[in-house]
């Protein structure tokens, strides 16, 4: 049960949120190859260590934001906006 710092509402329990999976995926245009489109749909990294993912505070402000999480310790390393660049991160413990 993670505790997540929603940028708008503050610290809340994980069960108020939904995880939308890996963030920073570029959506290809219509002229992309079948393989590129397939990668966009299905290929995801499964990191041991820092995972950049997007979350929604579903039972709160309903806003999406980005989050950097250490998949080993489940420590949340950073919370940042959907259009923000990836911030400098503390070392993951993995």
């Amino acid at each position, binding site marked *: *049960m*993670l*505790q997540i710092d929603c940028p708008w509402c503050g610290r809340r*329990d*994980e069960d108020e949120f939904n995880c*939308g999976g890996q963030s920073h995926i570029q*959506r*290809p*245009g*219509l002229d*992309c190859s*079948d393989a590129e*489109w*397939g990668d*966009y*749909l299905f290929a995801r990294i499964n990191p041991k260590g820092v995972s950049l993912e*997007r979350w*929604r505070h*579903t039972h709160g402000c*309903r*806003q*999406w934001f980005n989050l950097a999480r250490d998949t*080993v*310790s*489940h*420590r949340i390393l950073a919370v940042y906006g*959907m*259009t923000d660049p990836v911030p400098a991160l503390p070392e993951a*413990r993995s």
Partner: protein
Amino acid sequence: MSMNKDRLPGARVDTSSPVSFFFDGKPYRGYAGDTLASALLANGVRVLGRGFKLHRPRGLMAAGKEEPNALVQLEEGAFTEPNVRATLQPLYQGLRARGQNAWPSVGFDLFGILGLFKPLFPASFYYKTMMWPSWHWYEWAVRRLAGLGKAPRERDPQHYHRQNLHCDLLIVGAGPAGLAATLQAAPSGKRIVLIDEQEEPGGSLLAERESIDGKPAIEWVSATLATLASHANVQILRRTTVTGYYDHDVLAAVERVTTHMGPSAPAHLPRERWWRIRARQVVLATGAMERPLVFPCNDRPGVMLASAVRHYLNRYGVAAGRRTAVFTCNDSAYLTAIDLAERGFSVAAVVDTREGGAGELGDRVRALGIPVHAGHRVLGTRGRKGLRSVRIAPHAGGSESSIACDVLAVSGGWSPVVHLFSQSGGSLRFDETLQAFVPGMSVQQVRAAGAAAGLLDLRGALNGGAEAAVSALHAMGIDAASALAQPAVSVPAAKALEPFWFTPGVPPEYQWLDFQYDVTVADIALAARENFVSVEHVKRYTTNGMSVDQGKTSNVNALAVLADRTSRAIPEVGTTRFRPPYHPVTLGTIAGRGIGDRYAPRLESPIHERHLELGAEMDDYGGWQRPACYLKPGEDEHQATRREMHAVRNGLALFDGSPLGKIEVRGPDAAEFLERVYINSIRNLAPGRARYGLMLNELGIVIDDGVLVRLADDHFLVHTTSGGAGRIFLMLEEWLQCEWTTLRVRCTNVTTQWATVTLSGRGARDLLAPMIQGIDFSRDAFPHMHFRTGSFGGAPVRVLRASFTGEGSYEISVPANRGLALWDAVYAAGEARGIAAFGLEALLMLRVEKGYLHVGADTDGTTNPLDLGWGPVIAKKQSDFIGRRSLSQPEAVREGRFRFCGIEPLDPSKALPIGAHVLDSLPDGRRRSGGYVTSSCFSPTLGCWIGLGIVRDGPDRDGETVTVAGNGIEMQARLRGTVYLDPEGERLHA
């Protein structure tokens, strides 16, 4: 017969409060303070269970939750609970328990004959012998012969609570380490919670004859509890087991609120309470568990853990037998011999696997006149339903001798209880001195203390507890505290444990590791021979550690055997993963009060009460309570639905469409946004006009459909399927917030703000015109798929001409609080003309007559818009939309896809079963599914059964006769177009 005339002095049971109870139907007597196990032991009941596979008699082995054998079925009927550890169950007046997996009783079990066939049942015998012709031939019998308790069949009359708890410091375990930690932390003023699973705090001190500051340890426990009681910031939860350690220092615990009272507990109390605890810092003082030794026939009733023998003697005043022998590979078991002998009980011998024997305690044992056989092993045990003697011999060989005894107290060393630490993500380290896994690095705010950290003696527990508290306080920024000086204790000088994992040189078949699932050394050896290497695979292959105790007594021994047989060191083999729950949790506790009506919120339309007055049969549709049909006196649901369908096609009909999803999309870029969401064109839709559209996900699969209305240039109303509004609204927001972040658009889900009443039939417009101001209802001024706004009694009203029945309809929406007034006004005005309300069942059949798609019923997780015949519409659109690129992937355009079409039975009086498969014949004569029937109903208008389906290339096979199979029948049907009624749409425009 009872072997204890009464209890020993000093026992923590109240001999002035006798308690009568029943085991396997026979009456017995114990005392308040007993567990079921201690009372049965005092009554001389030796066989408490039967082995899982072989039904060998099994007796009490432990005194705590690690007990593998004494699992009983508590009580009967709706209250009953299977697999209750007799060692944890407090005795209450009139308690009734039964042994499990035996017939007629555990004492005399006819299935015990299976024990003679032990060689036939090695690990994996199911997989190897019961394959032909099919496992299902054997399952019936195996399920009866093998197993543990029986789940209750009746509804649970008890209730359960869930509760949240936040604290600064959580301390798990109220033994010496946990109490010392709490004592240390209490003055900090932080919110401290101490959780203990026993009936009373004290942990091992309740069971050992140790002294603290020269006084019996139990006095220190009482004094400590008194001190803690004066600290308002300290809360103690008793009878509570922490079962799981989750992310970010959340722990789950089960409090057994009335387990000590039984079925007569006051009704207002929950049976159990499920705690969800969020702690800033955690100290695990969970102690250690003693391991059994592994030797031939070590499962005989009377073979007990040495610590358990002391526990029953010192805490409950019960001697486990008349004459006890001790078998050990470490010093701690010598205490059992000393405690028994000093209480005047006969101790036959101490058999020590170490050539050098024990330290200080060894001297005390010899001084008591007890023979010590160092460098010896046990080669076997005798006794039919209980131990009579053991056979021992020196390791080096030489003469065997026999020791008469009815209890063999064994100790294979101690394993710290690292379960919660491991669940928290912390690593484990193999300690060579203890020959056990101990906590290593932690990744959360947790530290282990005392025996849980591998410090097995009392001094280590007290000091370790205090130091852990200091460390936890330090982590919270409280630095002033240094560890309190701990009271004086004496710790005898001990010799090191020497591992003795199993008994070599004698057959391994009868050397038990896992008593609950009947796994022996031979089974692990078999797995190793068959080249199983991973400890996780060996666990599953042999089932070692997979029963309800999750290997509490067997895991370390089993992996030591695996290490030996695969010539590896134990740390190299590693341990299986510790997963929650640490101790089984009943489902009722997890569900808490969220059952029945409290399982989920019920959505009701503003017109709900009127539906009930009209005789509506309510049902759940996508979370909404909606009328399935309206029953008139004497009607059943089929008759009512057919009457309603007839009314819609031939007269005035009224429907509550309030749950219809409504999302307002507004902003300068609203048209651009919806152009990217819908597969059809939106930009060219004029204000005041409506259009039916489909939405896809990125995989190109149809996820929703509905009518889109343009209210103004920058303002749209998106209608979604009922029950789909929340999901679609979140999807639109996700695209706006995450992908198209520069679009200036706002979405608002207004579904419940508007009540919607749908009126159709001849005269509808004449009825509405005087009631609604500001709208010209004439046929030419307000055609199909147009939208108008006006007012109803001063309230805003929105009217859409759209239809899901095929009849010309008006969908009239007013603010939710005016919904009932609108319904009543329309109903009253229409009564003279025979207006009829119709429900969901009629609606869903009327739309089948029209071939209207029902997303989720006529589509599945593979259906794309090309399968629905939308190819030409998409081809006309130039720009991208969600899922478009997926529609040109090879999978989307291949031949042989399941596509939407009509399907009608050749015999029109026969119903096509929904879900029945349309069969393809293959060249080799076999048949396979070529799609299925998705909708089927009787059309009263057409007088026949009709259907829709998704069928392999269905639209290209118009008129083809196919075989349909489902519900055990086969029938012939014909593929056709989807529209059965009014293909020109004349009714819509009427």
